[in-house]
């Protein structure tokens, strides 16, 4: 049997299991739009916790965190994980539960329905629609592209004689890390088709079930991976000795944050604010059975993030320690590199799984990584299908002219189109999916002031909201263009900083800081000078404790 065959069979078995979950959940489908899009608001605390966590953790949580820790050291945990633990819960509490109460009372399924009603403006929907869709697409691309890469790396050696499966380096020598593996275009296509099928048939209930299952899989397998890789890399008698040995060889650059700018650490706090405006997270909030259902995600999100991230961070810094000194290199092939010769940090985890574990465990761990990827993809596909249907077609054609059945058919049709478009885009030459991810999060974070104001500030006007959206996206576009000018050798998009001269002192800011600040300021200023919302609107959204 060729290398990679076992892994491929396990991955295929896992995908079949997911399809079964999708078909099983379809048996509970009640046939209504509300059931298809928000599972008839029937999701309890456990499923909400698991599906929200699975949705917010992308490939970045497993693959990207290991790679970033390899590059920057332990500080990555504080910069991206413990901060998310605080801010995600805060968003679920202060934004999630509150919009859920409005949505249950006034029958919203999407953010745009809420904003249209809250601001008494149809145009805010027209403005938000392309912005939200445009920001979700790169997020989807991260998952689709990563899944193809993971499957290729994990099945390397499967069919080295087939021309489609061959993989070469720029100098035309064989790339040992990927040669003979399922080509990325085929792996990505397979993942897209599986996710499409269970979302198509299962709707939100299928998505929530699949998310919960996949979240459990990637959390359990993440811990198992950590245990196995630590024992293999350490080579000592006991697990604890291996932990001590591996950590002792990590250089100070990676066991401290000496090379990390303190200002950057602070500014990264703004990135997790994006969760407050993710349309797919919003739709998951809408599935909750009751307000109390939110307590589990609010409390346990930081713990779950910790369970997934800490092992990945340690593996990343250990790998740096082992491979930065020739005396400590473990046996086996060298780390995968980019065409420039630099280590391809995003392939470190799949590489370790492939080289340090057996074929069977490797196959399961590959399934775990794919689970993390797919648990975000499904919600995003469903969400885009829902907002196309509700905010464009149904809104303009009229609810009374479309039956529930027709709206479900429309949602499904849009999902098929979105999956097809995303897949085709993934075949293009994307410079860095992880840099795209951070930029996509920054865009959503720039819209964060809008949702906070809509919920807590009576003075927010429709024009103020529009100014906020326009400013956010204009600033995002301008800064993204500037980021594209940074050569890859200098870090590319990820490394771009905005430099401001204050009394001769050069202040460097992450683009997200500028985006959030300008979006908030324009919203406040324009709201001050434009007509305030009507009394009826204010009464509807700020006097909830007095039922009519």
């Amino acid at each position, binding site marked *: 049997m060729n290398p990679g065959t076992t892994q491929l069979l396990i991955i295929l078995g896992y995908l079949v299991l997911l399809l079964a979950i999708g078909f099983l959940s379809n048996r509970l489908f009640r046939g209504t739009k509300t059931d298809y899009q928000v599972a008839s608001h029937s999701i309890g605390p456990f499923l909400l916790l698991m599906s929200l966590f699975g949705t917010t953790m992308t490939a970045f949580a497993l693959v990207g965190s290991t790679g970033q820790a390899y590059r920057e050291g332990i500080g990555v945990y504080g910069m991206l994980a413990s901060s998310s633990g605080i801010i995600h819960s805060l968003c679920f*509490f202060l934004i999630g539960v509150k919009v859920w109460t409005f949505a249950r009372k006034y029958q919203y399924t999407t953010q745009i329905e809420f904003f249209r009603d809250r601001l008494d403006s149809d145009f805010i929907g027209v403005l938000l629609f392309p912005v939200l869709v445009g920001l979700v697409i790169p997020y989807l691309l991260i998952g689709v592209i990563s899944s193809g890469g993971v499957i290729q790396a994990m099945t390397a050696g499967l069919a080295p004689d087939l021309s489609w499966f061959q993989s070469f380096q720029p100098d035309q020598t064989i790339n040992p890390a990927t040669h003979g593996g399922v080509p990325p275009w085929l792996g990505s296509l397979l993942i897209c088709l599986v996710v499409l099928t269970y979302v198509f*048939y299962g709707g939100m209930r299928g998505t929530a079930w699949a998310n919960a299952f996949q979240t459990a899989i990637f959390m359990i397998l993440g811990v198992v991976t950590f245990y196995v890789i630590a024992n293999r890399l350490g080579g000592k008698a006991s697990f604890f000795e291996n932990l001590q040995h591996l950590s002792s060889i990590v250089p100070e650059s990676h066991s401290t944050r000496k090379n990390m700018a303190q200002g950057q650490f602070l500014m990264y706090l703004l990135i997790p604010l994006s969760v407050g405006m993710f349309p797919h997270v919003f739709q998951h909030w809408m599935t909750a059975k009751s307000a109390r259902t939110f307590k589990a995600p609010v409390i346990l999100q930081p713990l779950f993030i910790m369970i997934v991230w800490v092992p990945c961070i340690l593996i990343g810094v250990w790998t740096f320690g082992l491979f930065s000194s020739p005396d400590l290199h473990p046996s086996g092939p060298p780390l995968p590199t980019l065409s420039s010769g630099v280590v391809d940090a995003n392939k470190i985890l799949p590489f370790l799984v492939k080289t340090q574990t057996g074929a069977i465990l490797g196959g399961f761990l590959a399934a775990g990584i794919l689970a993390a990827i797919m648990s975000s993809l499904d919600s995003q596909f469903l969400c885009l299908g829902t907002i196309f249907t509700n905010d464009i077609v149904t809104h303009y054609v009229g609810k009374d002219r479309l039956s529930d059945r027709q709206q479900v058919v429309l949602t499904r049709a849009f999902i098929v189109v979105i999956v097809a478009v995303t897949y085709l885009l993934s075949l293009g030459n994307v410079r860095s999916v992880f840099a795209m991810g951070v930029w996509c999060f920054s865009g959503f974070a720039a819209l964060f002031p809008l949702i906070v104001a809509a919920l807590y500030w009576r003075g927010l006007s429709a024009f103020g909201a529009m100014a906020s959206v326009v400013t956010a996206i204009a600033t995002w576009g301008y800064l993204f263009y500037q980021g594209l000018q940074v050569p890859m050798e200098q870090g590319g998009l990820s490394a771009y900083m905005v430099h401001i001269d204050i009394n001769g002192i050069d202040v460097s800011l992450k683009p997200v800081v500028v985006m959030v600040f300008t979006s908030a300021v324009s919203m406040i200023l324009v709201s001050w000078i434009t007509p305030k919302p009507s009394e009826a609107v204010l009464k509807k959204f700020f006097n909830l404790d007095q039922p009519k």
Partner: protein
Amino acid sequence: MQRQMSLTPILLVSAILLILHQDYWLWSSSKLVFGFLPVGLLWHLGVSLAAVISWAVVTQFYWPFDDDTLLDCVEEHANETAAQEPTTDGGAQS
């Protein structure tokens, strides 16, 4: 639906957690706790656990949402809507 919601405890907890998050005093310390856990990483593990405990306390004692009243409101609104415009319905069983 919502009791008079005081944001003070929630914002106070968040502020304390965010201050604890900025642990500049451990920036350059390479100490390994238990022989394997860099102290800077251990601190942030502690921040994550502190967040879990804090949110548990806040949701227990400062939960501003009352499901029973909310469901009454939902039902009342649904009745009003139903009285104003009858909804279309159809099956979409696949």
